[in-house]
């Protein structure tokens, strides 16, 4: 019922139609596509810029200092000052480097991370590419970025960056598995690989006010947690930021990069973070659906943006809190904890799917079994993982 929709909901469509109306008919298809791309680039480029500022501000506040506040009003122009600084820096290419791959690595990384924005539904009518297997496309684009990491490490002809690239690849491959396994339950429940269909499947409310988001089910919560941990690792965020651990490695596979190419890697990192956050919102947090029925007057893209910003703030919060893992802890955590939990979660969602036809009276039993299927393996495996690591005693420090 498009006629009943509020004006704000349709505003982007109206804007696009207005632009289209100015153009001759044969150009419209192209302009449509280019408009999508331009809007995505503009919105996420600005989001990237202000995300760096927000990150520095929030980190500063958490560490009890004001953060950057010089450029512009309270520091809002800081990202642009950084951009100018990065653009004017010298771009050093090592003499023995492979010049083509050295150039191609950051470009490929940014390109792949931008590609993943195409399939995320940002609003009821805001979806650049409605693909039947959009989720698969998203993760295929994410997996391709591993190649760019390898190219960056290898092309500098520096054994340290090559070693660091191999470490980064080991991390990316290890966490690819829980990332992929954690969204399988969503696909199983909604019966589709299309992001828009997954969001639609999460519409509606239990009892009129509890949203039917996937995260509010036992398997959905477990899947969301695994997905978030794995996406922290996939986007090289703290506490999994060992690929470019600036304090102990010299930026890892980015050692031989300088100037704007170096900035491109960070751009790709933030784009990856935004894309994975957007996918988490789509898969688990109900996408653009409003949390309550009476809040439906707020346009859907605002809900999506709010949820995405909340997740990004969570990323920053975690970065401010947790220290970095060691590489062995990192891989052990992936293979011995996240992957088994994700596999158990498949069993949980299978049970949830099969028990959907139980009568209403059995609902508490259904929930209890599903919660037990999530909690018991978590506690048991967590005990095994942290066995022998007990509470640390400080012999020489003041208690």
């Amino acid at each position: 019922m498009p006629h009943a929709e509020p004006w704000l909901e349709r505003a982007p469509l109206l804007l696009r139609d207005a632009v289209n109306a100015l153009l001759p008919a044969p150009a419209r298809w192209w302009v449509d596509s280019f408009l999508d791309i331009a809007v995505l680039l503009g919105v996420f480029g600005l989001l990237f810029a202000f995300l760096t500022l927000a990150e520095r501000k929030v980190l500063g506040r958490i560490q009890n200092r004001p953060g950057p506040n010089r450029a512009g009003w309270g520091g809002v122009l800081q990202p642009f000052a950084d951009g100018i600084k990065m653009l004017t820096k010298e771009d050093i290419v090592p003499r023995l480097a492979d010049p083509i791959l050295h150039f191609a690595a950051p470009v490929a990384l940014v390109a792949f991370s931008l590609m993943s924005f195409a399939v995320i539904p940002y609003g009821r009518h805001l979806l650049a590419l409605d693909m039947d297997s959009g989720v698969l496309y998203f993760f295929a684009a994410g997996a391709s970025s591993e190649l760019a990491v390898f190219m960056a490490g290898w092309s500098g002809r520096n054994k340290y960056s090559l070693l660091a690239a191999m470490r980064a690849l080991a991390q990316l491959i290890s966490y690819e598995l829980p990332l992929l396994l954690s969204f399988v339950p969503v696909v199983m429940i909604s019966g589709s690989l299309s992001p828009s269909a997954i969001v639609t499947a999460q519409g509606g409310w239990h009892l009129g006010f509890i949203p039917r988001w996937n995260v509010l089910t036992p398997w959905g919560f477990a899947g969301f947690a695994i997905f978030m941990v794995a996406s922290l690792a996939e986007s090289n965020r703290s506490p999994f930021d060992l690929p470019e651990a600036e304090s102990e490695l010299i930026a890892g596979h980015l050692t031989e990069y300088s100037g704007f190419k170096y900035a491109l890697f960070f751009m790709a990192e933030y784009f990856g973070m935004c894309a994975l956050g957007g996918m988490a919102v789509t898969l688990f947090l109900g996408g653009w659906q409003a949390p309550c029925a009476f809040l439906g007057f707020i346009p859907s893209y605002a809900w999506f943006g709010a949820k995405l910003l909340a997740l990004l703030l969570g990323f920053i919060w975690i970065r401010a809190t947790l220290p970095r893992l060691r590489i062995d802890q990192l891989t052990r955590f992936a293979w011995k904890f996240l992957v088994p939990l994700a596999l158990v979660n498949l069993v949980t969602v299978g049970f949830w799917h099969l028990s959907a036809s139980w009568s209403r009276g059995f609902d508490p039993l259904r929930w209890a079994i599903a919660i037990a299927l999530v909690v018991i393996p978590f506690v048991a495996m967590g005990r095994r993982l942290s066995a022998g690591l007990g509470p640390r005693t400080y012999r020489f420090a003041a208690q």
Partner: protein
Amino acid sequence: MLGTGLIKGLMVTAKNLAGSFHDPERLVTTEYPEQRTVLPQNYRNFPFLVTENAEDPMGTLRCVACQICEKECPPQCIYIEKSKDKKADAAGKMQIYPAVFDIDISVCMSCQICVEVCPFDAIKMDQVFEIATADRFTGLLLDRGQLSKPNSYFHQIHPTDAAEVDGRLAAERKAAAEKAKAAAAAAAAKAAASTASAPSPVKAPPPVSAPPPATAVPAIPPPVSPPPPPSPPPQP
């Protein structure tokens, strides 16, 4: 259970995030150009020359161009040329004064040795730290006009030291004046009593200033003397 520690840590950081907004006491940084911390009295950076009178800085420099500091300076950043004539110092005594007194503060290492060796309390450590210039060769080479600062400024930045120095100088001057008076009286008495021997000139500073040259002089030859003969190459 696994994860409780993480949640505890997240709570701590969240508390800090919220606290930093409503409790300015938490903020540990100062916003430097606008907001300045009070420097501790013992903070020192580069030397300056003390003058007695702010109106006539060149005329009332305490420095008598004895060049002890120049010779003692480890990085050799002080350059002094003595004057040919003499001028009256603050106590009214005729003294040589520095015609040129340069300190290259790009070389100075703030060791304070010049201050410690100065027998006249004429050079003291400053607290100015905003010395950045665009020209590192001439901008950081300070001449005596830039170096001289009044005693009142010294009182302002190092009150304890300055009070102690002023007290000592006053006592010395008083003692010198008394001694001179006594010597004059004795000479007058002697002259009056009989045809006396030649009166000794007043020597207030020498007892203080005599030892430093004695120690400083041997310090000069090493740089001037030829390098020691090369030692035989070490046998493996």
